[in-house]
C-alpha cells in the first residue's frame, strides 16, 4: 500500500478546517440574542480574521418570525386602465388633426376601443398612421364607428409592464421601512413574493404595499442657501475617482454638485448623502429639518457610484419647493423612445398628459424654464431633469448625455416606469399571506434541535453497536458531513427552516446508508475468504456505483422539489440536496481514507 492515504488525510483535514472556519460568523450570529442579530452588534462581534459577516446561517421566516406575502398584480384592471387612457389619447389626437370625434370608449371586455365619428375612413387612417405598430382595426364595427384593437404582443407588454411597475413600487416602500434582508422576487403568473423577516405588523405591511403609487412633480430650489450650513456640522463625503468612496459615514456627510441656474450662471448646491435611506433620514432629521421653512422640503433620492454592472448605491437629498405642482393622475401614458431628430438616436422618455393635465403642465413648465423638476414617487425623488422647453400634452424628458446608449435606454425605461406608476393603477392584492409571530420561532428551534440530536445520537450509537470500529469510522465521517453541510449552507446563504432541520437529520440518516452498504459488502467479501485488505478494496469498488445511483435518484427528487416549493419546503429541498452531495464525499472518500490507513498492512485486522 503506497502512502496515498496521507494526501487524502490532508485533504480531509483541510475540508474539516475550512468548514469550521466558514461557520465562525454563524457561531457569533447565534450566540447573540435574536433581537440583536440584525443590528450592528453582530458585525462587530465577528472577529477580523473570520469570513465576511454576511456569510452566516439564516433562519427561515418560520423560525425567526416575519411575514411572507405573495401579491398578485391585477393585470386585467391594469390593461383596462391602459386601454381607457389610450382611448382618451386617440380622441385628443384626432381633434388636433381636425377629425371630428363623437366619442372614444372601450367596449366589450375592455380591450377594444369603439370610436364614433362622422368620418370613419379618415379617422381610421389617421389613427393607424400614428399607432400602426401597436394597433389594428378589426372589421364588424357598427355604422358610424370604427373599432380599434391592440396587437397580442402589445397587450402582453401592458401586462408585463404592470407587474414590473408594481414590483418597483413595492421595492421602494420596503426600502423605506428599513426591514433588514427583505427578499422581493417576481414569480410567474403576475405574482410578486415578498419576505420580511422579523417584521411584526402584517396589517401595516399589507396596507402600505397594497396602495397604488403616488407620483408628484416638484420644482427643486437650487438657489436657496438653506442647506449650506450643514457643511460646518457634518464631514464632507470622502470621494474617489468614481465618485464617492463607499461606504459613507453612518452619520451621513455632505457634498456639492454644480447646477445650472435659469439666469445662466451656475451654483455649487449642497446636499447630504448616506449609505441607506434610514441613515439619511436620521441625518436630515438632525441637521436639516430645523432649518427648513414652510415653503421648502427635503426630497430623498438615489445615486450610484462607479460604472457598469457593479454600481454601489447611496442616498442623497434634494431641496424642493414644498408645493406639489402636479400629480401623476394626469399622466395618460409614458414610454421610452428614441429621438432621431439630432442625427444619432438618443434615448428619451415620451409621456402624454390628459387634456387638463396638459394645461397644468404647460403653465408649470413655462414658469420654471431651465429649472430642475423632480418626479417624486412615493416620497422618493426618482429623477430631476432640467426643463428644457415648454411641455403641454405631449412631453419629452431628455436625459443627460455622455453615457453608453444601452445605459441611457435603461434609464429612460426606468423613468417611464416611474411616470406610469403614478398614472396607471397596477393594483395589487394579496394571494398568499403567512405570518409567524416572534413567540413561535425560539420554541420550534429548541424542539427541532432536540429532535435532530436524538435522531443523530441513535444513528451514531447504532453504527458503533453494529459495526464496531468501522461504525466509528462512519460516525467520524458523519460528523464531518454535518459540519460540511452547515458550512455550505452558510456560504451560499441558504435559510434554515423547520422542514430544513428535518431534511438535515434525514440526510445524515441517508449518509450512513452508504457505509452500511460498504460494510455489508466487506463482511460478504470476508466471508468469501478474502484478506482484510482485499475485502476493503472490493467493498468500496463494487459498491461505488450503487451508492452513486442511490444518491442520484434522491437528488432528482430533491431538485424537482426545489423547483416546485417555496419558503420552508424549498429550505428542505436545498438542505436535502446539499446533504446528499456532501454525503457522497464523506461516506466514500473520508471513510475509505481512514479505513485504508488502518488496514494498510496485509496483516491488519478489522472489526466490521
Amino acid at each position: 500500500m503506497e502512502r496515498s492515504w496521507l494526501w487524502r488525510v490532508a485533504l480531509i483535514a483541510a475540508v474539516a478546517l475550512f468548514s469550521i472556519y466558514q461557520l465562525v460568523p454563524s457561531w457569533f450570529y447565534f450566540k447573540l440574542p435574536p433581537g440583536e442579530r440584525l443590528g450592528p452588534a453582530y458585525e462587530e462581534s465577528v472577529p477580523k480574521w473570520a469570513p465576511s459577516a454576511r456569510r452566516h446561517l439564516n433562519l427561515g421566516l418560520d423560525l425567526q418570525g416575519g411575514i411572507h406575502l405573495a401579491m398578485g398584480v391585477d393585470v386585467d384592471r391594469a390593461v383596462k386602465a391602459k386601454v381607457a387612457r389610450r382611448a382618451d389619447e386617440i380622441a385628443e389626437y384626432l381633434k388636433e388633426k381636425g377629425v371630428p370625434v363623437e366619442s372614444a370608449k372601450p367596449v366589450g371586455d375592455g380591450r377594444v376601443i369603439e370610436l364614433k365619428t362622422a368620418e370613419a375612413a379618415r379617422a381610421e387612417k389617421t389613427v393607424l398612421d400614428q399607432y400602426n405598430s401597436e394597433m389594428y382595426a378589426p372589421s364588424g364595427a357598427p355604422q358610424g364607428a370604427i373599432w380599434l384593437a391592440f396587437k397580442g404582443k402589445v397587450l402582453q407588454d401592458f401586462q408585463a409592464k404592470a407587474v414590473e411597475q408594481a414590483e418597483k413600487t413595492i421595492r421602494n416602500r420596503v426600502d423605506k421601512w428599513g426591514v433588514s434582508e427583505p427578499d422581493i422576487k417576481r414569480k410567474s403568473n403576475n405574482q410578486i413574493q415578498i419576505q420580511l423577516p422579523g417584521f411584526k405588523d402584517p396589517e401595516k405591511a399589507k396596507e402600505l404595499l397594497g396602495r397604488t403609487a403616488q407620483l408628484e412633480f416638484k420644482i427643486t430650489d437650487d438657489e436657496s442657501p438653506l442647506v449650506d450650513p450643514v457643511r460646518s456640522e457634518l464631514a464632507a463625503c470622502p470621494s474617489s475617482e468614481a465618485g464617492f468612496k463607499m461606504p459613507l459615514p453612518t452619520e451621513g456627510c455632505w457634498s456639492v454638485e454644480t447646477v445650472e441656474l435659469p439666469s445662466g450662471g451656475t451654483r455649487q448646491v449642497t446636499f447630504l448623502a448616506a449609505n441607506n435611506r434610514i441613515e439619511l433620514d436620521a441625518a436630515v432629521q438632525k441637521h436639516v429639518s430645523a432649518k427648513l421653512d414652510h415653503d421648502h422640503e427635503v426630497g430623498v433620492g438615489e445615486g450610484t457610484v462607479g460604472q457598469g454592472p457593479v454600481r454601489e448605491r447611496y442616498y442623497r437629498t434634494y431641496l424642493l419647493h414644498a408645493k406639489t405642482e402636479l400629480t401623476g393622475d394626469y399622466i395618460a401614458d409614458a414610454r421610452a423612445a428614441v429621438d432621431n431628430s439630432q442625427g444619432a438616436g438618443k434615448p428619451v422618455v415620451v409621456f402624454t398628459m390628459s387634456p387638463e393635465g396638459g394645461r397644468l403642465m404647460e403653465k408649470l413648465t413655462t414658469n420654471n424654464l431651465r429649472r430642475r423638476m423632480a418626479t417624486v414617487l412615493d416620497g422618493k425623488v426618482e429623477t430631476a431633469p432640467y426643463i428644457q422647453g415648454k411641455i403641454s400634452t405631449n412631453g419629452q424628458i431628455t436625459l443627460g448625455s455622455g453615457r453608453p446608449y444601452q445605459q441611457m435606454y435603461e434609464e429612460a425605461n426606468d423613468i417611464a416606469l416611474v411616470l406610469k406608476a403614478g398614472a396607471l393603477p397596477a393594483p395589487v392584492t394579496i394571494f398568499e399571506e403567512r405570518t409567524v409571530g416572534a413567540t413561535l420561532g425560539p420554541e420550534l428551534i429548541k424542539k427541532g434541535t432536540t429532535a435532530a440530536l436524538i435522531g443523530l445520537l441513535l444513528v451514531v450509537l447504532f453504527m458503533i453497536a453494529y459495526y464496531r470500529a468501522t461504525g466509528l469510522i462512519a460516525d467520524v465521517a458523519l460528523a464531518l458531513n454535518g459540519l460540511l453541510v452547515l458550512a455550505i449552507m452558510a456560504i451560499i446563504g441558504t435559510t434554515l427552516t423547520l422542514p430544513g432541520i428535518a431534511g438535515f437529520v434525514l440526510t445524515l440518516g441517508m449518509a450512513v446508508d452508504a457505509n452500511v452498504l460498504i460494510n455489508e459488502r466487506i463482511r460478504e467479501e470476508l466471508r468469501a475468504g478474502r484478506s482484510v485488505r482485499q475485502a476493503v478494496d472490493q467493498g468500496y469498488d463494487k459498491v461505488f456505483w450503487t451508492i452513486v445511483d442511490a444518491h442520484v435518484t434522491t437528488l432528482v427528487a430533491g431538485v424537482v422539489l426545489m423547483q416546485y416549493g417555496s419558503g420552508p419546503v424549498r429550505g428542505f429541498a436545498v438542505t436535502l440536496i446539499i446533504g446528499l452531495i456532501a454525503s457522497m464525499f464523506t461516506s466514500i472518500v473520508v471513510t475509505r481514507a481512514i479505513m485504508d490507513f488502518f488496514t494498510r498492512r496485509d496483516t491488519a485486522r478489522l472489526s466490521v
Partner: protein
Amino acid sequence: MQFKTFDIIPHDTKFDFVGKRHIAVVLSLIANLAVLIFSLNAVHGLNFGVDFAGGTEMEVKFDRVVDAANIRKSVEELGFKDASVQTYGPESEHSYLIRVGRIALMSQEDVNRVIQAVKAKLPVAGEPHFNSEVGDKIDFQFTKNPTTQELKAAVEAAGVKVREVREEAGLTAGTRSFAVITQGIRDKVESDLLTRFGDAKPDVRRVEYVGPAVGRELRNQGFKAILYAMGLIVIYVGLRFDFRFSPGVIIALVHDAIITLGYFALSGREFNLTSVAVILTVVGYSVNDTVVVYDRIRENQAKYKGKHLGDLVNLSINEVLGRTFLTSFATALSLVGLLIYGVGTIFDFSAAMLIGIISGTYSTWFIAAPMTIWLEERAEKKRSPTARQQPPQQAKSV
C-alpha cells in the same frame, strides 16, 4: 477477527420472493386501491390544508385550557360555517389550529347588495369591479367623487364591515377610483377571540392565508412535480441498468407514493406542501434499495451465466436482504427524534416518511425486483411454449 459481530438478518436466507410476487402484487393493488378510493372526496377525502384548499389558518396559543368546541362555536357564530378547530401539539401547550375554508368574505349576493346600496346613495360611474378570486375588494368610480367616509358609511349600511377605503388613480387620466376593502378573517376572528376568551390570553402565533386560485395551482403543480420526479427516476434507472427493469421501478414508485399518501388519507392529518415534499422524498429514497438489488442482479447475471432469471433474482434479493433492511433501518432511526419532539407538520413529515421507508423496502423485495422477470416471461410465452427451457436473454451490461 477480533470481535464477534452479528447479523440482524442472517446472510444465507433463501426466501422465494419471485414465487410470492403474484400474491404481493394483488395485496399491494388492494392496498393502493383502498387508499385511492378512500382519498376520493365522495368517500372520505384528503384533509387538504390551506396550501391546497385555500383559506385561512391560525395557530392560537392560550395560557390555559380552552374547550375546542367552544372556539369552534364562536368562530361559526361569526359566519364561518365550515370552521375547524384542532388542538395543535401536546395538550399541555393549549395551542389550537383554527381553519376557515371560505376566503371570500363576500358572496356574490353580498357584493350585489353593497353595489345597490352605494348606487342608491352616490353617483356611481360605470360598473363596479369585483374579482371573486380576491374576494374582499370592490372598485368603484363616481361621476362626482365622495369622501372616503361617505363611501364607507354607504357600504357599512349594507351590513358589510369595511377595513379600509382606498383612493386610487382611476381608469382614465385625472379621474379617481375607490377600492373598498372589507374586513379580513384574521381581524374578525382575533378580535372575537380577545373578547370571548380574553382571560385565557389568546396569542395568534401564526397565520396562513392562501387564495383559492393559488391553492388550486399549488395542488396541480405538486401533483405534476411528483410525476416528473417519478418519470426522471425511471429514465435514470432505465439508462443505468436496463429498460427491462422499468416496469418494476414504475410499479414500486407508484406503490410507495400511494402508500405514503395513505398515511394522510387514513389518519386524516392535514395534507399540505410539506406532504408533497414527503412523497417526493419517499419517491427518491425508496429507489435506493431497488438500485442495490438491481446492481446485485446485474453482478450475478455475469457470474452465473445461463441461470434461470427467476432463480437469479431470488438469489440476488436474498444476498442483499440484510443491507436493504439495515439502510432503511438507519434512516428510520434518524426520524425517531422528530417523531417524539416534532410539532405539527414535522411530526406528520416524519411519520409519513417512516411509512414510505417501510413501503420502499417492502416494494423492493416483493415488487420491484420480482417484476423484472415479468417482461421476460411474457416474451417467452409469446415466442413459443417449447422455448421455455432456453436460458433467458443475457442482460445488456451498461
